[in-house]
């Protein structure tokens, strides 16, 4: 078993009377796909937000690659190698598909205080961008404006942008949300092709996706970790069946 790249220690976040994250202690091992599941309101997105830096935890620590990042700003964590996709797709809608990814490449290619040269013809940005777009299967949409992409394609674009930041950890918040069966299957295939190459923390509602991809599953309920372990154990766990898997196929 590999080393944990991300360690959460006693992470706690309260919103008024609601404890969205309740003493969460968790390790994400390098090279693994670690899925976080749980019913709506279990605190999954809040947890992701704390790791990416958009939400400040009230207590606890976040260690990434051995370094404390509990209080660092979002962009600093991104530069350390934490890339995320959002539950609600978030791309630069008025940019071309290529420019979206080029900007992500640029973010990790030194400072952007370059005022004169045309970025759209800068091979140092365009070539890697094309490569990542090929990886997610968007090569034929390169010059289209992102707003013209379908929902599924925007999700793919988001993944390409995440890859372009040379991530050491991918935080994927419901990558198949709102997708049709076909699109969803394609996304799962894409993510499966990442297995072993990237460390992924996957928040997902779609149980097919979770059991197809995850090396390890953590079940959250009301902000607490109910149980954490390999997929087979989770499937067999009576508490999980009752709290989550039991209530239908959500």
């Amino acid at each position, binding site marked *: 078993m590999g080393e944990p790249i991300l360690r959460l220690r006693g992470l706690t976040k309260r919103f008024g009377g609601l404890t969205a994250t309740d003493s969460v202690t968790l390790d994400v091992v390098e090279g693994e796909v670690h899925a976080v599941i749980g019913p709506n309101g279990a605190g999954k997105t809040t947890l992701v937000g704390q790791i990416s830096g958009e939400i400040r935890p009230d207590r606890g620590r976040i260690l990434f690659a051995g370094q404390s990042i509990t209080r660092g700003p979002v962009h600093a964590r991104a530069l350390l190698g934490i890339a995320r996709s959002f539950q609600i797709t978030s791309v630069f809608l008025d940019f071309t598909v290529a420019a979206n990814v080029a900007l992500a490449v640029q973010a990790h290619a030194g400072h952007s205080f*370059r005022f004169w040269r045309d970025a759209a013809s800068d091979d140092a940005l365009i070539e890697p961008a094309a490569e990542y777009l090929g990886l997610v299967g968007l090569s034929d949409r390169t010059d289209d404006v992102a707003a013209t992409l379908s929902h599924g394609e925007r999700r793919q674009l988001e993944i390409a942008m995440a890859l372009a*930041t040379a991530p050491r950890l991918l935080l994927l918040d419901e990558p198949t949300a709102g997708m049709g069966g076909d699109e969803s299957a394609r996304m799962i295939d894409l993510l499966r092709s990442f297995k072993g190459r990237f460390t992924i923390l996957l928040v997902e509602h779609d149980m097919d996706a979770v059991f197809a991809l995850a090396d390890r599953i953590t079940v959250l309920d009301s902000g607490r970790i109910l149980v954490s372990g390999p997929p087979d154990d989770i499937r067999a766990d009576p508490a999980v069946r009752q709290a989550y898997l039991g209530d239908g196929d959500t």
Partner: protein
Amino acid sequence: MRIPVGTAVAAGSIVALAIVPPITEALREPFYLGLCLRLMILAIAAISLNLILGFGNMVSFGHAAYMGIGAYVVGIGAFHAVEDGIDWLANGFLHVPLAIAASSLAALVIGAISIRTRGVYFIMITLAFGQMLYFVGVGLEVYGADDGLSLYMRSDFGDVLDINDNTRFYYLVLALLLATLYGTKRLVASRFGLVIRGARSNERRLAAIGIPVYRYKLVAFTVAGAICGVAGVLLANRTDFVSPDMMHWTRSGDLIIMVVLGGMGTLFGPLYGAAVLVLVEEFLSGVTEHWQIVFGPLLVLVAVYARGGIAGALRALERRRG
């Protein structure tokens, strides 16, 4: 090869501006030379505002303050040159860098505070800072307080260029206008420009891919202030007069109107907006002193029916033709 409508209008506008001096001279109408001079200077200021408002989504409501700072550098320099006989204080080669330094410093400080806020708070804070500088101007008793200061000499560029000659001054301003347009074109398409446009498009995403948005917005805000400061140097010399009114919030509002009317986030939009505002003001105010009663509804129509402003309308025209 067919020339796009937008390109044709842009090129036509530049050519039209370039042939104004011989025409006004032939017609013995120097007034219109001065009018077009003012138009171009305000266009430079509007282009600088568009850089942050149109491309970066920072609605600065205090942008005229930087123009005032640039103008006061000239005004105060000329004042002491004439009153105290300190000739070098009238030197234009001193005025320009000093105006850039002063206006960018002001923009740096104002931006550092206001860029931490968003939306309507950003508008209110920049408005407040603009008004603060306006009242500083009103408080300058030595320099005429709210009556302002008449310039008894223009910025002195020695043998290089005599801007007391309005035609030469005109072509200097035209050259600076073209340089500002070209610089903006390059800047917006550069890596820096990509970040600024990204901040308009989706600031949250920008941070998530690892870009420290704040410092890029601050630099853009400062650059815009510096360019506007140069416009202030030009305006003071054009008007031979400096007063706090140049910094009043309604002047900042005029600049916003130019940008919105011409087309936010377009290269030539601010020039068109400045042209319409200056010309409409001139001709309608000749008809009625309540010209704003006509102009107001015109603006409402643009806001409702032509969100892209004049440049946007030209683009739509091109699409229909294509």
